[in-house]
């Protein structure tokens, strides 16, 4: 469905250093800096896949989405989405895709979302009954029936995002580009948006590409992740596999009924969090059974659980420990 080969994108940015003297100097001579937002990025995405773009701020995720949706021209390399080159902005291509940006909205601010829906129906030249059916279906699924008649400016952030999704999906696109769709939403609203995207993907077979800060979003939604760091593709594959490779360890969290004897904990493994009656140990996956058995035998355990380490931490370690030249690791 999507095919990117050796994508590069370089911006020329005017550098304006602080200070009056520098400002004066830049009147005469502007200094430019080349910023490489993407460098030699290649990947293929099959129809119906849900793929997450991960990476720190400024890694090039948004740039990648914009190139894929045809808003930006790549400096070099090639992209095709379906059978189209996005930058041609062919009508058929535009009917096929959609872009949702968590930070920017297409809803008309002073008018109810229903007006934006009506406008998009006209823009995409959709037959009325078909568009009405889609709209009803999406509105029901997101439970926003009473909202679409209220002026957008009166809606909360989460309500607006739901309406954005309806506006973006009205023409039943087969490729969804979602740029931080859950940004700023509270946890339960994040979960609902996530859920909705998964259901849309499963019922229509649409391809979903998503960027997000929230590791949870990506973990819950995308079986496959593409990690971009400083413009380079550094990982492409399954998130759990990545997690296991970076941190082949488990977390054992224990609650105690009374204070354990000093020294006992350290003998079991590396203690990563500790309060009076609670401790969390990091233990290599292979030794978990043994460690649990030992803990139950030697410590005053009231409750014990075994978990994977948090994804945020893994990503931090992964990106922090990245070699500067950024060789591709694959699963």
């Amino acid at each position, binding site marked *: 469905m999507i095919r990117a080969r050796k994508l590069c994108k370089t911006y020329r940015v005017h550098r*304006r250093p*602080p*200070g*009056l003297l520098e*400002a*004066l100097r*830049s*009147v005469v001579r502007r200094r430019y800096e080349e910023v490489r937002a993407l460098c030699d990025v290649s990947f293929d995405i099959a129809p119906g896949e849900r793929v997450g773009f991960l990476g720190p701020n400024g890694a090039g995720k948004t740039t990648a989405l914009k190139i894929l949706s045809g808003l930006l021209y790549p400096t070099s390399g090639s992209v095709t989405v379906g059978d189209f080159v996005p930058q041609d902005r062919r009508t058929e291509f535009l009917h096929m895709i959609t872009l949702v940006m968590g930070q920017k909205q297409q809803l008309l601010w002073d008018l109810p979302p229903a007006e934006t829906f009506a406008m998009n129906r006209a823009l995409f030249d959709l037959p009325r009954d078909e568009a009405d059916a889609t709209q009803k279906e999406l509105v029901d699924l997101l439970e926003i029936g009473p909202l679409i008649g209220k002026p957008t400016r009166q809606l909360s952030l989460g309500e607006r995002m739901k309406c954005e999704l309806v506006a973006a999906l009205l023409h039943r696109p087969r490729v969804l580009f979602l740029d931080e769709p859950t940004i700023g939403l509270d946890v339960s609203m994040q979960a609902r948006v996530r859920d909705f995207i998964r259901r849309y993907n499963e019922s229509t077979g649409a391809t979903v590409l998503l960027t997000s800060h929230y590791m949870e979003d990506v973990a819950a939604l995308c079986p496959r992740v593409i990690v971009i760091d400083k413009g380079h593709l550094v990982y492409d594959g399954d998130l759990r596999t990545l997690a296991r490779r970076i941190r082949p360890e488990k977390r054992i969290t224990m609650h105690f009924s009374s204070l354990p004897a000093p020294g006992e904990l350290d003998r079991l493994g590396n203690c990563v969090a500790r309060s009076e009656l609670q401790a969390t140990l990091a233990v290599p996956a292979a030794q978990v059974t043994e460690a649990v058995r030992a803990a139950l035998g030697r410590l005053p355990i009231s409750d014990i659980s075994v978990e994977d380490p948090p994804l945020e931490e893994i990503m931090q370690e992964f990106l922090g420990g990245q070699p500067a030249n950024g060789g591709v690791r694959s699963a």
Partner: protein
Amino acid sequence: MNRLLRGEGLRTVRHVLRAYPALLRVGLADMFAYRAELVVWLLTMNMPLVMMALWTAVAKSGPVGRFGQREFVAYYLGMLLVRIITGSWLVWELTMEIRNGTLAPRLLRPIHPLWAHSAMQLAAVPLRAILVSPLVLVLYFTAGERLPLHEPARLAIVVAAIAGAWILLFLIMAIIGTLAAYVESALSIFDVWLGAQAVLSGYLVPLELLPPWVARTARYLPFRYILGFPVETLIGLESTTSALHDLGVQALFIAGSLVVTLALWRAALKRFAAFGG
């Protein structure tokens, strides 16, 4: 400024004086950052040139009142000069800050926002002066004998009049900008002001060419003291004594506007606080 009126004056003044150089520097850097805007804004001041073209065409067949072709050229060049030097963007900045709530952080600083704004706007004056220097040259070569180059008294009045015009316009803009706390359409109000100013300040047509009763009325309104008065004094249409008198009137208008500004600002702050911006 509020505190200044209430008698804690000296400390405030010293504080402002200490902070002012830094504020000016920031203002100047800001000015350079937006130099493209400044140039575009300068180009929007083309009305005096158009009026100059019109009136010189009219005066070809003989002078209009006291105005021959040379007087018209001098008048509109002077108009352009004073307009560019005394102009500021306060009203737009203020309405924007009030509307999108960026005024709030400014209020937290231990210096009156209008002081900070005055520094930002004042910092633009030297650059504006540099940009209009070619105009001064043209003015010198076309109407040098009308300029107060050998009359230190009149020269001093011109400088004072231009400074006064800057302050008066700044205060008027502060008043109208503050209204944004009350009404959505503060900028429309300013539009009306600009329209009235175009006619009653002598910007479009020298006041003495308007019907006499309009010209008389204009002397009792603030508009003339923003543009017409400095220009008339600059190109010698007004005698030194009457210019001195007008300088006093200008000072009165400044004092009045200052009182209105401070009162309105305080009232607006209460409202701003009540609505949380």
